[in-house]
Structure formats: structure tokens, C-alpha cells
């Protein structure tokens, strides 16, 4: 390492970095964007392949043929559901018992912190019903889970019907090595959360539930089945789970392999696969699919019932039947065969799925981008922050200079920013009653609007208060603050990207350019506008619009704003109900960090 120990060359390197700092940063930023967009280009991606030996070579034969039975069970289930006005517990218990399962129920109740207007629920009370198919001569150490939701209205009846038909068929087979749990969960994710917490005897979200009576050891994998319509044309695979966690890629490979084998139309992000990667449309298609995955992962919520399993180290995916492509009608028996094949292969597993990737992006079902390929895109953005630490006039000795600014100068804005963050995190939910009393709004609106208000108020607060406390800011002062803020942001984004690449990348793309160039000497009005437009809240707003654009349901500005508000309420709810970390991350860390830069802009 002569480069570092030789003072001359070190000096030359420093000089180069200092002199060409801005151009290098700009090149890095552009390179990051180009790299990221290049990830969707097919020649740059890898073809998916099955890594797990136990699932690869042992092809299984699918013999499930009771599609008619599944449909009649679905009808029966529908009738009983209507009669019971919710989960038909008794009928379901009997139906499962008649199929030779050990049946148990779990009741749960949950009071939401504020009413969920999207799903129209506040006090949630429900029952999960599950039946365990005991594998012969297995010691109850391993299990697989198949779930279907009991949802209001007409949807997902077929999923329950198919679940029961599969249970009946599976019960007559002798090759099971793992117990199979058939679970019908009420109130989608809340029921699933209650069941998982009950199964693992944890309580992380304040759910009230009755303890589970029957267990089957450690769950190895789970499949969640949703059939939203009676006519199914294609199957969509949903992988994004809570906090952007993804199941092992082999689970996606397994699904894809069986879709290929059975000739089933399969999609990811609702998008079919195209073979014309060399055309502009082909590339755009792949890029859109990947962008959708990035946005879904970044928002950190569970996009299907499977998402909550991932916390417990259980590989899980949702399979959603979609009626979207005409002329491709698929019968229920085929879906049953697909599930049978997948479950049989999972049954063959000797170890948990661990051979393939856990960190990946999918531009299509047959192509994937592994962590090694996408991380450089983020690395290029992160390096900008580190380069800016060494920008002209901000040398490393500022901190140790005794004549430099006092600790108070720097600490005050940091503390105030974070207190604002804490207020943003705590107040919306806790002040809802007061807000409802004083303003003509519903609880949900109260929460969201309080959040927006605190967010906006935060813009005025920090720089004014800190001036009151420590008097005039010095030139050195803002430099030290900026140094701190840059390092802080770099660490924050770095840690976020390691856990949830998409979130880290989306935040970095918007936060890095403005934070890297922020000084108090810039034109105030223009810079302030730029900063606000690139603040975390606006990032969410842009994501909403882009997402709507990508799923081909563009919205007007007004609708977009309403969606934005509902996204915020959903984020807060996800945090309270399932422990999603995006809202606390944004409120407690990212937003205060951004406020610190805001503070620099108004430094005087």
C-alpha cells in the first residue's frame, strides 16, 4: 500500500479527489443510474436455475384430478360463508376432519391503532382454522404450510375449495415426509400474523389470540394461494414480503419450472415474459417489471399472505390466480397439479431452502439479478457521500481543531432534528383523538394529516431554535454539521441497502444529489425548493405516481394525492400491525437526517 503510505502520492491522490470532486461525483451518480437501468437488459442478467439438488433432479408426477370436487367445495364454502357472515368455522372444521386431518382453530382479536379505511376495519375479530395432515412415520419435526384466505365477498372461495380438495388427495398419499398444515386464515394478514405468532408463541405486535393446540414442528416452507376470480387465466407469483424480505430464489424457480412443465401462463408483477429482449419494447418491459419489484420491495409491506412467514425464517411465496388474459382459461385441476408438484418437491427437501439467492431482483421469471450485480449501483451512490466528505475546505482536522465550533453548535441541530423525528413517529397516532375532537376529520385522516403537518412544521423548526440556543453559526459550524450529516446519511443508507436494497437505492437516488451539494451559500429559494422536492415525503409521492404508471393505472394529481395519504396511513398501520420498519426508519432517521441538511441550507 505504497499509495497510502507514500506522502507524495497520497497528496496527489487527495489533490485529484479534491480538484475533480464535483465531476467525479456527477459521473458516479450517472453511472449508478445507468448501471441500475442496465440491470434489466437481458444480456447482463443471469438465467435462473434450480440450485437445490433435492428439488432439481427428482421430478415428480402430478396426478391431482379432482378439479370438479374443488369447485363444488368452493360453492359449499361460499354458501356457508354467506350464512355465517364470515369464517364458517364449524363447517370448515367438519370438512377438514372428514378429510382425515387433525383440525384446530385459533381465535384472535386486534384493535387497530386507527381505522383502516382501505379495508374498512377497526376492531378485528376472527378465527383461523387449520388442519394438520400428519406424515406417516415422521416425528413431527418438519412441516409445510398451504394457506388460503377466507376473504369477504366472492373472491378466494375457489382457493379454499382447492385447498380442501388437495387435502383430501394428499391424505391418501403415502409419500409425505413432512407434516402438511392446511390453513384458512381470516382477515388476511392480521389472521396470518395471529397464527404465526401463536405458532411461535411470540407477541411482537400486541395481538390477542388464543394459544394454538396443534403444532407440527419447524415449518420449512409455505405457499399461499389466492384465486381472486372464478375464471383464472394466469398465475402471478408474489415474493415481496415484510420489510422487503424475499424468499429463497429456488422457490420462484420451482414455481416457474412447474408452470413450464404444465404449460401454465405465469407472470410476475402481473407482467408476462417477453422473448424480444433486443427490441426497445422488450427492454422497457423488463425494466418496468424490475422497477415494479423495486418499488414493491422498497415500501416494505407484505404484498401477500406469505410475507409474514419470512420473519420466521420460513421460505414462502404467494400464488395469485388472475383473470387478465383472454383465451387462456385454466381449470382448477391444473392449479391443483401445480401445487401438488410444488409441495411434493418441497416435501423432498432434506434441508431448508438455502442453496440459492436470498437477495435478488427479477426483471422476468426466468432472469434474475443477483446481489453482486445490483450492489454496485448503490455503491456508486454511496461513494458520492464519502467523496463529499473530502470536498474543498472541509478537511478532517476541523473536528480536532480546538478553535473550531463548540460541540453545542453541531449537537443542537442534530438533537432538534431527531426530536422532530420522534414527534413525527409518535404524535400522529397518539394525538388522533385530540385532532378528531377539534377538526372535522375522521381518525384516519387525523393521523395522516397530523403526520403531514408535523413533517411540514419540522421544516421551520430546527434552524430557528438552534440559532436561539447557540447564537450565530460560524463557517466552521456548518462544515462540521455537514460532515456529520454526510457520514450519518452514508451509514444510514448503507445499512438500509444491505437489508432492503430497493429502499436504500430509492432513497439514495433522491437524497444523494441534494445533500451532496448543499451549502449555505447557494441561492436560498431555489435550493429550498429543490430540497423540498427531493425530500423523503416527495419521494413517496413520486413512487406512488411511478407505481401507478407501471401497473398501467395512471392517476390524476388529485387521485395521486389521495393515494399518497393512504400510503402513509398504510405505512403507519403496517408498522403497528406487522412490525414493518419503513415508517420508523423514515420518521426516526431519514427525515431527521434530511432536516440536518435543511439546517445547513439556512445556516447563518
Amino acid at each position: 500500500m505504497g499509495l497510502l503510505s507514500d506522502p507524495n502520492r497520497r497528496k496527489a491522490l487527495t489533490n485529484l479527489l479534491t480538484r475533480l470532486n464535483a465531476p467525479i461525483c456527477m459521473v458516479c451518480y450517472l453511472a449508478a443510474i445507468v448501471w441500475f437501468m442496465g440491470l434489466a437488459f437481458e444480456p447482463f442478467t443471469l438465467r435462473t436455475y434450480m440450485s437445490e439438488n433435492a428439488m432439481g433432479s427428482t421430478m415428480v408426477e402430478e396426478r391431482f384430478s379432482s378439479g370438479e370436487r374443488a369447485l363444488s367445495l368452493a360453492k359449499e364454502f361460499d354458501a356457508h360463508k354467506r350464512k355465517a357472515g364470515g369464517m364458517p368455522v364449524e363447517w370448515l372444521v367438519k370438512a377438514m376432519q372428514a378429510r382425515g386431518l387433525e383440525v384446530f382453530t385459533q381465535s384472535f382479536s386486534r384493535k387497530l391503532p386507527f381505522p383502516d379505511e382501505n379495508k374498512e376495519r377497526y376492531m378485528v375479530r376472527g378465527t383461523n382454522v387449520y388442519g394438520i395432515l400428519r406424515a406417516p412415520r415422521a416425528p413431527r419435526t418438519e412441516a409445510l404450510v398451504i394457506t388460503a384466505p377466507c376473504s369477504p365477498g366472492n373472491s378466494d372461495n375457489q382457493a379454499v375449495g382447492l385447498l380442501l380438495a388437495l387435502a383430501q388427495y394428499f391424505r391418501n398419499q403415502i409419500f409425505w415426509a413432512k407434516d402438511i398444515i392446511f390453513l384458512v386464515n381470516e382477515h388476511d394478514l392480521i389472521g396470518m400474523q395471529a397464527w404465526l405468532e401463536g405458532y411461535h408463541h411470540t407477541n411482537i405486535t400486541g395481538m390477542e389470540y388464543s394459544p394454538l393446540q396443534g403444532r407440527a414442528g419447524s415449518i420449512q416452507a409455505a405457499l399461499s394461494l389466492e384465486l381472486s376470480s372464478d375464471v383464472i387465466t394466469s398465475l402471478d407469483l408474489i415474493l415481496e414480503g415484510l420489510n422487503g424480505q424475499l424468499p429463497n430464489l429456488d422457490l420462484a424457480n420451482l414455481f416457474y419450472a412447474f408452470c413450464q412443465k404444465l404449460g401454465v401462463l405465469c407472470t410476475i408483477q402481473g407482467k408476462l415474459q417477453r422473448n424480444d429482449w433486443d427490441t426497445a419494447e422488450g427492454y422497457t418491459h423488463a425494466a418496468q417489471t424490475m422497477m415494479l419489484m423495486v418499488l414493491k420491495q422498497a415500501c416494505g409491506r407484505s404484498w401477500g399472505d406469505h410475507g409474514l412467514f419470512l420473519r420466521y425464517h420460513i421460505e414462502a411465496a404467494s400464488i395469485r390466480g388472475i383473470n387478465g388474459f383472454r383465451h387462456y382459461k385454466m381449470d382448477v385441476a391444473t392449479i391443483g397439479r401445480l401445487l401438488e408438484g410444488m409441495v411434493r418437491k418441497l416435501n423432498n427437501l432434506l434441508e431448508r431452502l438455502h442453496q440459492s439467492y436470498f437477495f435478488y431482483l427479477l426483471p422476468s421469471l426466468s432472469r434474475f439479478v443477483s446481489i453482486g450485480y445490483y450492489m454496485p449501483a448503490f455503491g456508486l451512490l454511496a461513494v458520492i457521500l464519502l467523496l463529499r466528505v473530502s470536498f474543498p475546505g472541509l478537511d478532517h482536522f476541523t473536528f480536532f481543531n480546538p478553535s473550531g465550533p463548540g460541540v453545542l453548535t453541531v449537537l443542537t441541530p442534530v438533537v432538534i432534528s431527531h426530536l422532530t423525528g420522534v414527534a413525527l413517529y409518535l404524535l400522529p397516532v397518539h394525538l388522533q383523538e385530540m385532532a378528531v375532537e377539534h377538526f372535522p376529520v375522521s381518525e384516519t385522516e387525523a393521523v395522516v394529516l397530523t403526520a403531514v403537518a408535523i413533517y411540514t412544521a419540522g421544516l421551520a423548526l430546527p434552524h430557528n431554535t438552534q440559532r436561539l440556543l447557540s447564537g450565530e453559526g460560524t463557517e466552521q459550524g456548518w462544515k462540521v454539521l455537514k460532515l456529520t450529516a454526510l457520514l450519518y446519511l452514508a451509514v444510514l443508507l448503507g445499512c438500509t441497502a444491505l437489508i432492503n436494497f430497493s429502499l436504500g437505492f430509492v432513497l439514495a437516488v433522491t437524497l444523494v444529489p441534494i445533500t451532496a451539494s448543499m451549502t449555505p451559500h447557494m441561492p436560498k429559494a431555489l435550493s429550498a425548493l429543490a430540497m423540498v422536492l427531493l425530500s423523503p415525503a416527495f419521494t413517496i409521492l413520486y413512487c406512488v405516481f411511478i407505481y401507478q404508471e407501471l401497473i398501467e393505472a395512471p392517476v390524476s394529481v388529485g387521485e395521486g394525492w389521495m393515494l399518497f395519504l393512504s400510503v402513509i396511513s398504510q405505512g403507519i398501520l403496517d408498522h403497528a400491525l406487522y412490525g414493518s420498519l419503513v415508517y420508523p426508519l423514515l420518521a426516526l432517521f431519514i427525515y431527521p437526517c434530511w432536516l440536518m441538511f435543511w439546517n445547513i441550507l439556512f445556516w447563518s
Partner: protein
Amino acid sequence: SRGAEGAAAPPVFTWLSDGTKDSESFTAAARDQFQEELVIRPLHSGDIYASFQFRTLWDTDFLQERQKVSHYRLFPKSLGQVLSKFSVRELHISFTQGFWRTMQWGQPFIPSPPGAELWVWFHDTVSDVDGNWKELTNVLSGIFCASLNFIDLTNTVQPSASFKPLGLGNATDHRFLRYATLPREIVCTENLTPWKKLLPCGSKAGLSVLLKSEKLFHSSFHSQAVHIRPVCQDEQCTSKAWELRQTLNVVFDLYTSGQGKKEWSLFKMFSRTLTEACPLATSSKVYVDITDNPEVKLKQQTVVLGDRRTYSVFDLTRAEMFGQLRSLNLLLRDMLRPLLHAERYVAGFGLQTGEIHTVIYNNHPYRAFPVLLMDSVPWYLQLYIHTLTVTSKSRDNKPSYIHYQPAKDRHRPHLLEMLIQLPPHSMTEVTVQFERALLKWTEYTPDPNHGFYVGSSVVSALVPSMVAMNTNFTQDQPLFSSFVPVKEESSYFVRVYTEPLLVNLPTPDFSMPYNVICLTCTVVAVGYGSFYNLLTRTFQVDEPSLPLAKRLANLIRRIRGVPLLA
């Protein structure tokens, strides 16, 4: 009912008088006797439980120093030699594939945990118990074709109270007891064949012709065991005899095999029929539980496990019996909930900590009774014993006796024994937290992502009987009802095993050693090397190097001898 009496088994503890009847087959040296028995019980879940017991009694003493036993007739020589070589006082070994579903099937006649279980009482003359144990497991491993050689000190415990000797003698010093389980052991044909070879008739005649592996392993539960213990020779118990019991329990799933029809026959279950008794057997019987189907004749009533059952008895030693064992249709009715039931699971998530929950149910409506809970946990789950809680009916339940032996890393497992009073009709939950240890990389199994097994915990109890029991052993007693000696009339002994646990430990990505080595080397070389360099080197202010023109000028000046330019 003459048939029932004639069919009745000879009383177990009065076999000597019975043996004199056909004494022409006995010699003075080989006073041994063989009995075989099959019990078939339809279970309330619709399954069929078949339990074989083969009992060899031999009036000899393997442990006598002077008299070496060398003439074997019915008792297998391989086991006899093992007994005398290792001074074994009592030996119990079981191989089980599957888990006994107490809630569906009730209590088994002889319980066993999934995998292999071995417990041995050594004679108190043995000085090096651990050495004997190690050798014994290796020998048994050979005899039964099983991986018993994996039993070592890291999975062996010495329970202080849970495993008392079942035979003669009142040994209480648990230094001579060794107990180990291998929950991962897979039981298959290769274990069945050596087990069958121990029978006097092999698989050629008698009940053992039914033991065909293709059917036995096409079942919901399979368990085979060998129990050797000293028993009384007669009622007065003046001298000792050795008893070898070979048991095989199997549960057939009628649901999958019978296409929904609840109908069974020997042929359907075993794909064989019985043709004769084992010629060496003094008694050979088939008992069919007809409690739920009382119109069948040939009855014998027996109280087993606190429940009075009615059995139809078929004595195979009587030739006229053949031609009777045809298909028997059965009506099924709900069974009593098992009075004692236990289950266990791991709570929590993540790979750092966890919590073992053991739930014990007392389903007796009004009687409380104490149970002994024994837990043997491998050292790599580091138990936090201060977090041990026992709660019944949401109230703290203080165990009256706790024996805890902490683990030693890589040497000894945890052993936890507790005497807990179970309130009537209650659920008692025992929880203890643990931390998952980080193993050395050579200590992982070849399939580390499968997880690591923790053996079943054992709940032993004297359960109050719902039915008054007759403990007069002179009466007719089938083999299956007389394994555990019962002293009290009002209760019976039950041992319940919970399911084993599969626990994931933090596992490195073994496919990446190359990457890790490369990365580590790079980090060490770049990071540490340069830092070390910077820290240890002394820095001096460098003369600024002169421009090329000046250096050329200096060169000329040096030649000329003129003072140099700075």
C-alpha cells in the same frame, strides 16, 4: 366360555408350574420358555394398532462369576454374551419411526420416543461405567445394525428419578444408569432383520411370519424394542430369572390403504396369514380388542392402562383355531381422552435465542397427580435455567423436586428433571429460554441447514386409574398388560414422550469458504497492512523535488564545482 379359559395365557409369574406340563421338551440346563402374543386394537381415529410381544424367560444368571453360561437354547446368544460381558443388569432399547399420537390413539402398551432410545442399568460391581457404556453401545450398534455408536458422553445422561429399574432389585444409585436417545435415527428394514433373528423361530413360524418389512414400513407408526431385565422366577421370588421381551408396535393407516372402508384383516395388514404357532412357544395367542364390538364371542377382560377392555382371544397352539381369523368388521366409537398428554415446541424466531415450551395436560376431571419431567438438551442449546417457569392454570407451580445438571460445552448435555404436581383438568406449561451456540465449523453435520435435533422429553407418571385394577398376578394376564410392575391398585404407570425438536443453529454459508478466505485475506492485507505500516513508520518531511530544469542545472554545477541551486 371354555374357549376363553383354554385360550388364556399362562400366568406370567407362574410359568414354572406351567412348564412342567410339557417338560419333555425341557432339559435341566435349559429351563427356558418362549411366549408370543399379538394384540390388535382398532383405534378411535380409524387406524389399527398391532402390538407384538415375544417373551423369552430363562432361569439362569449371566452375572455369576464362576459359572459361565455357554449353552443357549431359546435366549439369543448374542444378547446373553453382551449381558455377561458388560455386567448389564437391565437393558432397554427401542427403535421408532414416527410419533405416537396420544391424542388420537390413546396410550401405547409400551411407549417409545421417535428415533433410537437406549437405557441401561449396569450391575453395581462395574467400576468403569462410562467405558462399559461406550463399548456396549458399539456392540449393540453392530447387533442391531443401527448408528448407536453415535451415542457418546455428549448425549448421555444419568437421570436421577425418571428411569427406575423395571425388574428385580431395588437399585437407586443412578451412577449405574445410562440413558441416551438418538432422535435422528431412521429405522428401516436393516434394523428389523437383526431384530427378527433374535426370535427362536426367526420369521419362519408363529406370529413372526407376519413381520414383513414391506408392510410394516407402510404404516403410520413403527416401533420395535428389546427389553431385558431380571424377574422373579416364581411368586415367592426365591430366585432370579432373565426375561427378554421383544416388542414390535405398528399402526396401520386404514384411511389410505382401505379407501375409506373401516375394515381390516390380517392379510390386509401384513399380506400374510397365520398358519401355525411357533413350535418352540409355550403359548401363542392373538388378542383382538372387541370392547367396541361386544357381540363377538371368546372374551377375556383385562384392565390395561386404566381402561377395562374386552378381548377376543385366539390360541394358535390349538389347531382348530385356524380358519377363524377372517375379516372382522368393527364399529368404532369415541375413546376416552388420554389422561396424560404432553407436547413440546420451540418458541421465538431468529437464530440467537429461543424458548423451549413443554406443555403437559392432565385430563383427569378431578384428580391431581405428580409427574416426573425429564429433559435432556444438547449442549449447543445453552439453557438459561434462571428463566425456567412452570405455570398451571396461569399460576406459578413450584416443582417439589428439581435435579439440574448443567451442560459442559462439547462434553455433556443438560439434564433437567422435575417433579411437578399437575392440578386436575389442567394444562401445565414449562418454559426455559436458551441461546443457540455458534459451533466450530467442523462440528456441523453434513446437512447443517436441516437443523439439530433435541431428543424427546420424558414425562413419567403414576396416573390414577379410572377403573379399579386387579394386581393379583396369579390371575390370567396377557403380556401386554404386565410390562410395568404395578404396586398400587388405584393407579397405573405411564410414560409419555413428547415430540423431538428440530432447532436451527446459526449456520455459516458453507459454499463460500473460498470467497471468505479471499475476502479475509484482502481485508487483512489492505486494511491491516497499510494501517500497521502507517502506525509504525516514522515520517520525515520530504525535500520538495526540484523541477527537471533545476536538476539538470545542478548536475552541470556539480561537475563545475559551483554551489548547487536550492
